[in-house]
């Protein structure tokens, strides 16, 4: 690790995953240093979603897709490339990568504490309304409703003591063991890790339910107290 000069790149945990900001050096050096760093600590990077800020580097399709392949071999999904170079932006768009990430909206973003301990939970004691977004790396507990148009994104599980009618993404960083429970589970859209489901229209909604991944399928079941 000491062999890697820190100025080559920076790693930062953000809501969307890991943000890697590349510094000033030749592309070959940067790429080599990045791959080296990943190989040095595979556990840290395993399953990560990566945003790469390449600054002014002009990257062609061949170069960028090669890097994406290298990263995916190491269990990292590159989903966004930020760049000030129009060439790179076009390349990234051609490869189907995002070129922008949402900037946090300070007044409405409830909290984005970085790298919380595994069992930490964000306590939200209010109804989450349309347009509000709660993103947290950890579990989220809401005492109140989650209204349509609201979003909850958690790297862990989401528990709603109320009606869940908005969009919820549990296990947003790939945790397939994440759960979503609510007193009334009727989200606009439910995501756990990489799976997406739309809640079926149902008449009897007045039962607490738990949604989880079972054999890669999203299933919702009535809450069984035992």
């Amino acid at each position, binding site marked *: 690790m000491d062999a890697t000069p820190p100025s080559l790149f920076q790693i930062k945990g953000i809501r969307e995953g890991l943000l890697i900001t590349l510094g000033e050096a030749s592309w070959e050096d940067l790429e080599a240093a990045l791959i080296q760093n990943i190989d040095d600590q595979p556990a840290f990077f395993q399953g990560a979603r990566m945003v790469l800020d390449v600054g002014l580097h002009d990257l062609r399709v061949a170069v960028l897709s090669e890097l994406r392949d290298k990263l995916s071999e190491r269990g990292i999904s590159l989903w966004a490339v930020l760049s000030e170079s129009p060439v790179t932006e076009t390349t990234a768009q051609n490869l189907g990568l995002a070129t922008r990430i949402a900037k946090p909206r300070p*007044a*409405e973003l409830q909290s984005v504490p970085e790298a919380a301990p595994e069992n930490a939970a964000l306590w939200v004691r*209010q*109804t*989450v*309304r*349309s*347009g*509000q977004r709660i993103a947290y790396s950890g579990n989220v507990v809401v005492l109140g*409703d989650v*209204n*349509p*148009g609201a979003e909850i994104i958690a790297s862990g599980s989401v528990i709603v003591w109320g009606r869940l009618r908005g969009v919820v993404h549990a296990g947003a960083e790939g945790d397939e063991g994440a759960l979503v429970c609510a007193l009334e589970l009727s989200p606009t859209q439910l995501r756990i890790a990489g799976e997406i489901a739309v809640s079926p229209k149902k008449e009897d909604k007045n039962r607490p339910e738990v949604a989880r991944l079972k054999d890669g399928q999203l299933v919702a079941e009535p809450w069984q107290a035992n």
Partner: protein
Amino acid sequence: MTGKVVTITSGKGGVGKTTAVANLAVALAGRGQKVACVDGDIGLRNLDVVMGLENRIVYDLVDVVEGRCRLRQAMIRDKRLPDLYLIPAAQTRDKTAVSPSDMIRLCDELRPEVDWILIDSPAGIERGFKNAVAAADRVLVLTNPDVSAVRDADRVIGILDAEGKGSPALVINRLNPILVRRGDMLSVEDVLDLLAIDLIGIVPEDENVIVASNKGQPLAMDSKSKAGQAFQNVARRLMGEKVPFLDLEAPGLLQRLLGRM
């Protein structure tokens, strides 16, 4: 006098904010209160039209803010109700002509003059909305019983909460009891269930509202229509009275006749 500043907003456009402001103003002024309405919709002013005062505009809100006239000069007095004033919006400018602190200053200047300052907020959640709620002591969120209007109202309530404005009161406008009974329109309970704030008014759909708006004669001036009564009731509740909600479920004369046939 220390006037209370009440802003009427909705997020979504076309739910009846301007009509509500005009009717509440008339209802309050009819109860001996001194009322000033401020049209916050700079560039798309309407309140003057609905109140029938369009032809008397000389100075407007932006003129006051930019110091081209005194506040008094921009206050148009309604001849039908001598304690009712309107400060119109400018039509040739846009929302950036006024800032939230301008609105606070303006309302502070108005407060000693009147009992109520009613601000008509533009649709949206941008600058115009921020201006309109900046000085508010109380916010009324107006919605229609439809899914998109309620969604926008929810958004607005969230923003007001985030800005520390507290919980607003809700007015449900254009409720059609027949559609509700048929299950084709959200009921008052459905809306309250989602928004979970205090209800201050339920106004039934009433075609007389359109006629009255076009004539520039707010409906609350004559109290025969149900919508006019409903606005009168909102005004009384604003003044602190406890007034039961209108029974909109009771079949009207026409329906009773139809039912007999």
